[in-house]
């Protein structure tokens, strides 16, 4: 039984990064006092991504995301809709392979059969109420049939251009929106000179190994992917997927007898205040040595 200590609120990333009105403690209070409409309209109901950072911290062992999920279910039944930016499937491209269905941590996409020009065909369809907009399916889709506005493959590619400088090595940092808990760390990352380009992605699971290859191909010296610590992913298993992808990429470099150190994957935990500075500096030093 919740005694309103506020631990969940203080561990939650959403209230800090996205929505100041977000407050799981208040939602639990609404549940306990049966305030329905307000709970259904509350951003807490719709923004919780079930990352469960609050669950191990709760002194009353309440599975808060489970409660929020139940409220969301009731809200959907009552006719409320999600205000989140969700992914869009381009049916002209979709082949109905189902990879997105397997990738999604929220069971949002599912396959449907539909008649197009008199022929039955399979397509993926995304349930907007379940989609949290992590973009993992965007990265997974082999034909680029899924896009999330703002972070489609083209949007990312357009950000990757850095003017090559002779002495200074260039570095692209893909940073997960949720991995740097402290605002100072994000500000610090942004304060690097031009040769370090920061690209924001919704989750490290959004990373497509091709992006890293494209970056190296366009003359950029190094790529760093910054995600959350194991068990702290905002989208349940995005950082696990990215870990797999990055180790695969690493192995590929090994087989091609290329230097794997040019692409690095770092996982920053909630308590690792200031670690990102070391990681970036280390990588720059390594690259500098190589360029020299």
């Amino acid at each position: 039984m919740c005694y309103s200590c506020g631990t969940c609120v203080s561990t939650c990333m959403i209230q800090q990064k996205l929505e100041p009105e977000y407050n799981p403690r208040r939602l639990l209070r609404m549940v306990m006092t049966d305030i329905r409409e307000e709970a259904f309209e509350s951003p807490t109901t719709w923004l919780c991504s079930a990352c469960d950072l609050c669950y191990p911290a709760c002194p009353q062992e309440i599975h808060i995301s489970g409660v929020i999920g139940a409220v969301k279910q009731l809200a959907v039944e009552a006719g409320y809709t999600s205000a989140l930016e969700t992914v869009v499937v381009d049916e002209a491209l979709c082949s109905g392979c189902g990879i997105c269905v397997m990738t999604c941590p929220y069971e949002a996409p599912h396959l449907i059969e539909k008649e197009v020009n008199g022929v039955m065909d399979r397509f993926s369809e995304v349930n907007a109420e379940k989609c949290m907009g992590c973009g993992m399916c965007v990265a997974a889709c082999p034909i680029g049939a899924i896009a999330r506005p703002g972070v489609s493959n083209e949007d990312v590619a357009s950000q990757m251009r850095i003017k090559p400088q002779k002495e200074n090595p260039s570095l692209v940092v893909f940073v997960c929106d949720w991995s740097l808990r402290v605002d100072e760390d994000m500000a610090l990352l942004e304060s690097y000179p031009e040769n370090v380009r920061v690209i924001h992605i919704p989750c490290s699971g959004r990373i497509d190994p091709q992006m890293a290859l494209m970056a190296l191909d366009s003359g950029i010296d190094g790529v760093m992917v910054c995600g959350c610590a194991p068990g702290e992913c905002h989208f349940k298993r995005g950082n696990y997927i990215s870990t797999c992808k990055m180790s695969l990429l690493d192995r590929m470099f090994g087989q091609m007898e290329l230097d794997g150190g040019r692409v690095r994957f770092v996982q920053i935990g909630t308590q690792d205040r200031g670690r990102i500075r070391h990681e970036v500096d280390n990588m720059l030093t390594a690259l500098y040595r190589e360029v020299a």
Partner: protein
Amino acid sequence: MVDAARHPKIKIKTYTTIDRVEGYVGNFEVQLREKARYVRADKCNGCGACARACPIEVPNAFEMNIAPRKAAYVSMSQSVPLLYTIDLEACIHCYKCVEACGELDAIDFSQEDKVSWEDIGAIITATGFSHFDPSVMPEYGYNRFPNVITAMEMERLNNAAGPTVGDLIRPSDGTNPKRVAIINCVGSRDKRYNPWCSNFCCMYAIKNAVLLKQMYPDIDISIYYIDIRTSGKGYEEFYNRAREMGIRFIQGRPGLITEDETTHNLFVHSEDMTLGKVVEHEYDMVMLNQAAVPQPDADNLSSVLNTVQSPGGWFMEYHPKLRPIDSPTDGIFLAGACQGLKDIPSSVAAGSAAASRAGRILHSDKWEIEPIIAQVWDDRCISAQGKQCGICAKACPYGAIEVEVGKAAKVFTAKCHGCGGCVAECPHNAITQMHFTDAQMLVQIRALLAEKPEEKIFAFRCHWCSYGGADLAGTSHFEYSSNERGIRVMCSARMDADFIYEAFRLGAGAVLYSGCHPPDCSYITGQRVGAARAERLQKTFEKMGMSPGRFRVEWISASEGDKYSRVINEMQKTMDSLGKDKLKTEIDALKPEMEKRARRMYDAPGVTEASNFSDQLPITLTTLKVDDGK
């Protein structure tokens, strides 16, 4: 303490453990082990020359390991008696201490543990509490961030006799902190670690804050809390004073502490509930007000003293409201936080109360006990016939029964508390419990099942818990089936299998076997004896083909009146769903088997007579005419 040491009738034995306790109230024999100090108590004058000469330094546990002590040491300077001890694990045997001690010749490395037996009239347990180690909580970074300290470390740091002579300094760089956060409920009110409220930490946090504020007037102190509990005399006023002094109280349990790695300053992330948003404040130092937990060796002491522990590991009292000082074993008393967390005034009150309770025993020649004790019929006990048995002794939670082959089992009257476990367990009906004899129980069962037994739910209730639960259900007007008929025994351990068979033989529709929840048993382990038997019975009835739910085992505490009524109503539903005809057929089908099993009971003295008597009893009861004079 010094006064106590000077008192002619008080002996203080420090560095001594209790290995064994035998005997009973007023006549305990206690085995004491005085550990070897390697310093002779009769010669040491506490001058400390040995410690000054000793070259070995180890962490000082009294100073929370933030200062060193020597291998020849005294645990704290106010120790009574002031005797030095040689820590042999740290000692390198350089014998410089022997040299330093010189003519006094107090150091004796040949010393060994001294074991002795003492006659004791009453025992008071006042072992206090221990501290929760916050390093198991990664979110607060204790042991990882140097400037996160515990309340006890703070206590040493701001103590004038402490290692810093009262100068509060940061462990990371030795500067005085300007901003200090105090976090309450670290490891307490937390289901993951300790669910209880540690009682005194709120006041303790306020005390430390006020103290620091007085010492460093420009210091900035915040106390993070879930609820501030100031429910003592003058406590709320003290809280108000702290607020007036400018100490900040932030309602919200911090979820995370992060550290700046260059300055080692700490950032406390919490919700400020009054503002309704997350705040991140920077501090120079954070004090964790950690939970109070039972002493690590409380389990061991509990088994030595033969007492019980409440959930969580605190020593259990005889009755939580009416006898909070007495333990369930006569002659053993509980004082202070070892029984449950108490602040200083309550601990002092409990100590005085325990002393006066113990004094009653020491000043009386006779000791009155409840008359419900167990007694052995020597001629029936097979141990007297030279056979190996001892079942009764195994069932006894108090060790009150002594069995020796060739002699009948012997019950030590002063030790017996009358749970009746031995009586129910004895396979030869050789023990009886006064006021709860088999004959008396039989008459009650017969009388209650005299009419329409197949409609009745027969409940066996234990005196301390489920009987109280039934009582509460009544006084709270919780409705339950009027077909319930219950009898009281002292403990579920007394609920003899024969009684259950007899009730079913008489045609009871359903039988409830109820007692305390396992940790609540007033007879230490009586409930376990009863529970084991209930489990056996359940299996037996299952094999016999009895419908599930007709024999039900439930542990109901005295505060669970609602549960009692729910269980009875559920049993009524089970009977209703079976239907009268089916129930009747089943009762008839099982009757021969029940009769066979219940027959053993009639062998007990007085039962046949009681049975003959009770055969007539219901008839007399029902045909009794009321003559109201009309």
